[in-house]
């Protein structure tokens, strides 16, 4: 593989601390992260700060990344599975500016992957950390908007509301109609929002070798899943969890087992499907080109 790591910039942004956050804020976030790892799936309130990017645009993930990132890390940032979506570029630029950290578009080269809405197709390793941007950490929020109440339900592990909601789907539609942000049980104790990843990605969270960290800036919550931890998508014995993907092959690499984006090609119903994970797709294309040349 070619090495495409962008070397660190010589200096970080003048007038700001390494990785933007001041040390006291980092300590506060780091303490929350350690407790989050010790209590898998439990949301920990933290004093999220205003970031120079808007709330809802990844401030939670950014604060987590800023608190773990060091000069020897290599950072990959994806949004919708792609490295070149505008917000991913903006966040990558931010860390290049404030931490001078090396960046990459290759999942295999990254030590820290910050993501919005996807888990990379390539299996993450033990020496990697994935940081999820989370808009709404409370899995019960559509069923009970009051945090005083949901906090109590988590304390009691009372998740009846969610089971009823899913069962109503089955009764009405024949199957569970949740396509993304599909709730999971972590280590058989806490109901957790996996963030708005497609349900297709949920199984990747189960016993993942990499550490998974979740940051919700606006809602001021941090949570985590340690490596090799049981993560089960909620389902029923007679209606097992089914990950959804478009039943097509990628138009670029031919993959039939990756998550696909639908691309509208004209206004006469023309469409095709391509991998959402752009790095994975490019690697597959390069591999098949190499095979063809051999």
């Amino acid at each position, binding site marked *: 593989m070619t090495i495409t790591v962008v070397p660190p910039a010589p200096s970080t942004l003048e007038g700001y601390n*390494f990785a933007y956050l001041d040390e006291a804020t980092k300590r506060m976030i780091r303490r929350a992260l350690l*407790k989050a790892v010790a209590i898998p799936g*439990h949301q920990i309130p933290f004093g999220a700060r205003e970031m120079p990017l808007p709330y809802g645009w990844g401030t939670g993930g950014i604060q987590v990344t800023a608190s773990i990132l060091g000069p020897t890390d290599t950072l990959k940032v994806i949004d919708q599975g792609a490295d070149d979506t505008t917000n991913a570029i903006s966040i990558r630029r931010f860390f290049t500016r404030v931490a001078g950290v090396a960046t990459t578009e290759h999942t295999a080269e990254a030590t820290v992957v910050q993501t919005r809405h996807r888990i990379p197709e390539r299996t993450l390793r033990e020496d990697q950390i994935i940081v999820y941007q989370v808009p709404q950490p409370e899995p019960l929020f559509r069923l009970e908007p009051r945090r005083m109440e949901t906090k109590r339900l988590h304390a009691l592990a009372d998740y009846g509301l969610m089971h009823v909601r899913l069962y109503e789907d089955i009764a009405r539609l024949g199957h569970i109609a949740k396509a993304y942000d599909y709730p999971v049980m972590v280590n058989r104790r806490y109901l957790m929002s996996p963030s708005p990843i497609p349900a297709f990605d949920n199984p990747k969270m189960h016993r993942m070798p990499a550490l998974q960290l979740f940051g919700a800036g606006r809602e001021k919550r941090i949570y985590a899943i340690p*490596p090799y931890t049981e993560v089960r998508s909620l389902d029923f014995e007679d209606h097992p969890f089914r990950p959804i993907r478009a039943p097509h092959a990628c138009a670029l690499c031919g993959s039939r087992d990756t998550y696909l984006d639908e691309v509208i090609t004209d206004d006469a119903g023309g469409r095709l499907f391509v991998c959402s994970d752009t790095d994975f797709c490019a690697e597959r294309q390069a591999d098949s080109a190499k095979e063809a040349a051999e």
Partner: protein
Amino acid sequence: MTGLTPGFADPALDAQASFRAVLEAMSRPGRIQRTGSSLHLPAPLGQATAAVLLALADADTGFAHDAGAAAEAWLRFHCGMPLVPAGEATFVLATGAPPALATLCQGSEEEPQASATLVIQVAGLAEDEGWHLTGPGIETEHRLRVDGAPEGFVAAWAANRAGFPCGVDVVLCAGDRLAALPRTVMIAEG
């Protein structure tokens, strides 16, 4: 405040490296990490112990310890943590026999994170022998030998674990090495 040796040479980067060692240790219970620090420390503080506290403790974290006046002066000068009774502390440092786990902050069912982290300085740590550890963070099983583990620790730990999600988390330090025991881990004696 004369005679105090310096803390981290690079406060931002050294704290980051120490934190990552603790994060890795907490994420993979029983795997030994190194802080790689070379601080000039008052006895009985070890490298890993000092690095962990420098990285994580501050004016917002109540602190209790048994490490004596010199260590206390050094830690409080660099971290500024308030001293509180062990039963109220966010960080508890034990260089000798630690207080009983059940007497430390356990957190509550609603806020289990409001529990103590107990840093225990032990004589030695080794992988691939000793205790059998299982639980989140461990693929099948990790082994950890703790030289100078507190007496009756494994039984006390089982009780701590039974209180999940409440409970104490432990960081074991020996020289510049550390390993962690989050409240989820199961320990069986080897």
